[in-house]
């Protein structure tokens, strides 16, 4: 790499100490030799220091903590560790109800596969003649 191949994000990696030993040596050597990359590094350092030291640390508004604690006191245990949340409980309940209804519906309806088997057995033994009305209707 020559001094003309300017670095992109590596000066910031150098600044934030995110480079391995060999990379650090390579980038530092480039920065030492390249005015533009050194200027970029200086700009980044200034920006970082402004953000670190220049920003205001806002004081908490009076009673914000109290307001939060009061709201927490009113909340049910919904999302507690090991507990079942209200929404999840509702989903479980609805799923169980749907399963129960489906089971009841199937039990009271005809068991079609069993009826087909019985009809076929009866036709084999000559007790019953198969009715092909449906098949004919479909062909027509």
């Amino acid at each position, binding site marked *: 790499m020559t001094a003309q191949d300017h670095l992109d*994000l590596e000066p910031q990696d150098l600044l934030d100490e995110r480079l391995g030993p060999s990379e650090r040596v390579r980038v530092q050597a480039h920065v030492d030799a390249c005015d533009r990359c050194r200027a970029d590094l200086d*700009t980044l350092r200034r920006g970082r220091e402004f*953000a670190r030291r*220049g920003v*205001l640390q*806002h*004081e*908490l508004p009076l009673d914000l903590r109290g307001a939060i604690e009061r709201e927490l006191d009113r909340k049910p245990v919904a999302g507690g560790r090991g507990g079942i949340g209200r929404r999840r409980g509702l989903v479980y309940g609805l799923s169980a109800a749907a399963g129960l209804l489906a089971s009841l519906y199937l039990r009271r309806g005809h068991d079609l596969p069993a009826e087909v088997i019985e009809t076929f057995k009866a036709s084999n033994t000559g007790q019953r003649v198969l009715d092909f009305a449906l098949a004919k209707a479909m062909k027509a």
Partner: protein
Amino acid sequence: MTDDLRAQFDTEALPHLRAVFNVARRLTGRDDQAQDLAQDTFLRAFDKFGGFTAGTNCRAWLFTITYSLFINHYRRQQREPKLVSTVGQDPLLESRVPAPESSRVATPARAAAAADVEGALAQLPEEYRAAIMLVDAEDLSYEDAAAVLGCPIGTVRSRLCRGRTQLANALHDYDIAGRQGR
């Protein structure tokens, strides 16, 4: 059980209230919205506390909730900030980004400098501001910041680079100690 959970939440989460409020303040730019956002963060956090792994970075976890709430509920109410050419000498900027009434700083000179830094920060694109706020102001790692912002580490890296550069250029007239007339 309930008392245990609440006590654990009070011990692990509530001490980060000021940090959450500061992040909310910088995201929204307004004290009233920051209070609402901070409160919503903690109520949501309590609902989700079952999913939090004790011993991990609770502050970063709270920031994730704050940022998510901001993106989904608060950002719509925000007006896009207008770009200005100079910072600290623009009366419009002074009226648009006032020094917050809840702030406490040591000296008037430092207050003015800090307000200018806040003003310059407020003018950055939201993505850059969020990366700077988390990594530089709140001292999160790139990895934690990426988790909060829901983006790859490389994206945090590039946003941070552009944001720091823009911030330094906007505050060209200041030295790092906050004195004007560089």
